[in-house]
């Protein structure tokens, strides 16, 4: 009955992500929550020029929402802002290594949305 979505690697990202925590100085940050399951995510990014130097997150929620955020943080450290904004839901699924059902997608994309929102120039934010 094991679910490959909940494999060792994902649980590691959930329980002991190296990206969990706060930055000394963040250039961008965003708080998001999903009222339907109570998941909360806080992300912070430090940017140097157009390059993402550091990502940290904090939050409470299900394995999927927290691990996906950690995987994204890992993926984005060292990437450009443009690259980060170019990532889509499919990339998050790829990082998780497993397809998500539509309902679970909402969990999986919470961190992605928060990062996107943090990096989006404020006057463009809807």
């Amino acid at each position, binding site marked *: 009955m094991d*679910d490959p979505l909940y494999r*060792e690697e994902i649980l590691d990202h959930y329980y002991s992500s190296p990206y969990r925590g706060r930055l000394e100085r963040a250039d961008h940050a965003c708080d998001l929550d999903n*009222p339907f399951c*109570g998941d909360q995510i806080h992300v912070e990014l430090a940017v140097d020029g157009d390059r993402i130097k550091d990502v940290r997150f904090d939050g409470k929620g299900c394995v999927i929402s927290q691990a996906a955020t950690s995987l994204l943080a890992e993926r984005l450290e060292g990437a450009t802002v443009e690259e980060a904004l170019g990532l889509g839901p499919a990339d998050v699924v790829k990082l998780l290594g497993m397809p998500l059902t539509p309902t*679970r997608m909402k*969990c999986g994309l919470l961190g992605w949305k928060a990062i996107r929102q943090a990096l989006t120039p404020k006057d463009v934010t809807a």
Partner: protein
Amino acid sequence: MADVAAVRGTGLDVSRVRADFPPLAEEVRPGVPLRYFDSAATALKPAPVVEAVREFLADYPANVHRGLHVLSERATEAFEGARLKVAAHLGVDDPAQVIFTRGTTEAINLVARSWGRMALKPGDAIVLSELEHHANIVPWQMIAAETGAVLRYVDLTDDLEYDLDSFDRLFDDGRVRMVATTGMSNVTGVRPPVEEIARRARGRGARVLIDAAQSLAHEGLDVVELGIDFAAFSGHKVFGPTGVGVLYGKRELLEAMEPVLGGGNMVLRVERDRAVWNELPDKFEAGTPPIAEVIGLGAAIDYIESLDAEAVARHERGLIEHAHATLGAVEGFRLLGPSDTAGKGPIVGFTLDGTHPHDLSHLLDRHGIAIRAGHHCAMPLHTRLGIPASARASFALYNTKDEIDRLAEALGSIKTMLRRR
């Protein structure tokens, strides 16, 4: 199934009942049979209900009311026959007091808007409790905002039960016009004392609405004996189809109330600038009604009435007691609401330490076990509990103790699997 034989002795042949619900014989994945513990979200439909809907759609899919051809006469007869069945099930003589809606939600909205506009003045109070489903909160918020009425919430005891002392205090200033209460919490299974609530509210001149969405799948509701003013329920939670629900109302109130939806059937006469309303129940049934769905609901009522109600109650009592005992033994299992099963229906709201309800529900699905996770449209209750979400296993007459044992096992193995390494 170990307990089927035992239950048979009580007058409910559970294995025969199970045979009426096709999904119970299915495997959700090869080798993984379905264990359906999500009946509080929607109940499975017995074969006669499915057949009644299919038959209408395939064989006599005509519009009702004033059709003069054979198909339409047949449809009208089946449709109005279902109204008689619902009326009888609620202990009501006059079928015109049974209004068909899309569901509980629409039924409560109808009362809140139509009765509320007629009866509520600024400062009048509507009494709710934190046990309520959003369907029995938001419509009252909306009409309160419109009329200047206010909402008052009954306190819950530490066990999350309806506190009648707190209830009494809400009447001190004589401003309560309506008491709207669930017949059974969809999160914890708690059953507020509706008889006593109705008696006390009536004695103080307040109207009473019972949200029977959950309770009616488990026990009868005699609206006349209770002397309540309104009751609402949904077809899909009482083994009927989606798309249909019922509002019962006292005739004098329904007659005084204005319709909410305008259109065909709810009028006797339409001129360019005015219309004359039709009689009950048509006044509140604008447009083509959910015909297949009403007929299917009639079949669901027939199904419920074909069973020995006492035996069903005994079986479900057995299930909830077994669930409390078995699930309660799982490490980290925390029951929401009273541990005493006497005042509750067969619903187990819970959390499992260190496990998010969403992960739990997701992983239980791997075991073929269907539960719900979330706030179950009862955010005020979750706010009180201080948790954003919970897990819920809800049982119906077709569940068995054996299935509950599988749930307990699965909870244990998920707890192990998710253990921090």
